């Protein structure tokens, strides 16, 4: 195990989700549900997406953020670790590199990393909070930088109106997001035939599940076009997982029991079969590998033998393909209803 890192078997939040109340204790374990539907133990189907969390620093402090990202976070992936990610990509196999954060743009080596991936012909996704792109001149150049390299831009926009968006993400977010979307549209992003893909991510601004993705996408497209002349390719609906800042919100608003009951009752085996952890490796800022970004926040690294094997510099396809995916009650968030992943609904 590397120094300065902590590995714990059972994160306090996982314990809380299992045992905090009588209602929570009465719920079936996620593994039991998997077992009932013939999916236990959950195992990988491939290694298609390398999701790299390049740091938890962000210009925003959104109420729902599972990363607990914000200006106060100092965890930033160093260039050496980014290079290890490139080495893992070079070993072949991954189709997509999905760069996330925090605001990934705030990593000082962000442009270098994107350039390196571009030179390798990788399909690159950048998860942007939109507002960073209009924050100051340094970041205003980024839409053009993305366009020149054919980067897929996937942006957060919780709703197509100001009130809901600003309530979740802070005052002024909606207007700045629309400004950034217009910048991206002007470069061809989200326009038919441009080859520049612009996707939006919706997540509920409260303790409820998303509406059906297709229905919401149609509403978003119509509203953003009519109100602002903005267009985009796809809307991804993502369910909020009960961890980190969103868990705090559920506790403070006395919604945790009801929310967990909703997630468990909505368990969908079709979604469970397609969960993203089965074809993704998530890498944390310190180089540790996880089954997903949520497990990263819960400090549950991949189950890959000794702890050295959990670091990206020791990436080994065979070991990772043989692993069992680590689960907990939070996983009900990805299997509820139509399912949820970084690419939207699953079923």
């Amino acid at each position, binding site marked *: 195990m590397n120094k300065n890192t902590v590995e714990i078997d059972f994160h306090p939040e996982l314990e809380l989700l299992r045992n905090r109340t009588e209602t929570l204790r009465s719920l079936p374990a996620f593994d039991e549900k998997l077992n009932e539907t013939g999916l236990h133990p959950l195992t990988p189907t491939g290694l298609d997406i390398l999701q790299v969390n390049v740091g938890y620093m962000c210009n925003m402090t959104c109420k729902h953020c599972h990363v607990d990202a914000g200006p106060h976070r100092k965890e930033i992936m160093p260039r050496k670790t980014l290079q290890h990610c490139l080495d893992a990509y070079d070993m072949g196999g991954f189709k997509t590199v999905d760069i996330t954060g925090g605001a990934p743009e705030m990593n000082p080596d962000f442009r270098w990393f994107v350039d390196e991936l571009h030179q390798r012909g990788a399909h690159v996704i950048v998860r942007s909070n939109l507002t960073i792109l209009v924050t100051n001149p340094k970041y205003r150049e980024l839409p053009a930088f993305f366009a020149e390299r054919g980067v897929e831009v996937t942006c957060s926009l919780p*709703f197509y109106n100001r009130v809901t968006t600003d309530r979740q993400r802070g005052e002024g977010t909606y207007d700045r997001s629309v400004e950034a979307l217009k910048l991206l549209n002007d470069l061809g992003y989200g326009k038919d035939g441009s080859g520049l893909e612009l996707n939006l991510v919706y997540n509920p601004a409260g303790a409820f599940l998303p509406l059906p993705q297709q229905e919401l996408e149609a509403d978003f497209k119509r509203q953003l076009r009519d109100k602002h002349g903005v267009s985009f390719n796809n809307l991804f609906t993502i369910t909020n997982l009960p961890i980190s800042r969103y868990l705090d919100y559920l506790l403070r608003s006395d919604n945790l029991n009801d929310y967990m009951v909703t997630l468990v009752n909505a368990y969908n085996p079709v979604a469970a079969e397609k969960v993203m952890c089965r074809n993704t490796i998530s890498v944390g800022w310190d180089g540790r590998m996880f089954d997903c970004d949520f497990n990263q926040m819960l400090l549950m690294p991949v189950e890959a033998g000794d702890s050295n094997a959990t670091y990206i510099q020791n990436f080994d396809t065979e070991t990772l393909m043989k692993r069992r995916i680590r689960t907990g009650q939070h996983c009900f968030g990805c299997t509820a209803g139509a399912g949820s992943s970084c690419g939207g609904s699953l079923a």
Partner: protein
Amino acid sequence: MSNSYYDKSHLAKFGNITELQEKLGTKFFDYYNAVFEGGELSAREKALIALAVAHTVQCPYCIDAYTETSVKHGISEPEMMEAVHVACAIRGGASLVHGVQMMEQAKKLTM
């Protein structure tokens, strides 16, 4: 068994009514689901109608359910309250319009 007449957990068990009279229950839910599919009215419009009716029939399950549906559709709280006032106006108006009957009957009965 709950000690109060309304139990929040019953909403999630609504589907259990098909355990008795399965055919009728299934027909009801098929109909119910078809009503809320997109049609001439949008799902958003239907959510607001359902919210107003929920207040008229004073069903706590329906109020919880259609408040949530309304929130999911991005319907603001002032919009929701306006829908409740529509329900109230119709309900109150329905009482008051009978006042005409009272007035006419009273007129007929008196000199």
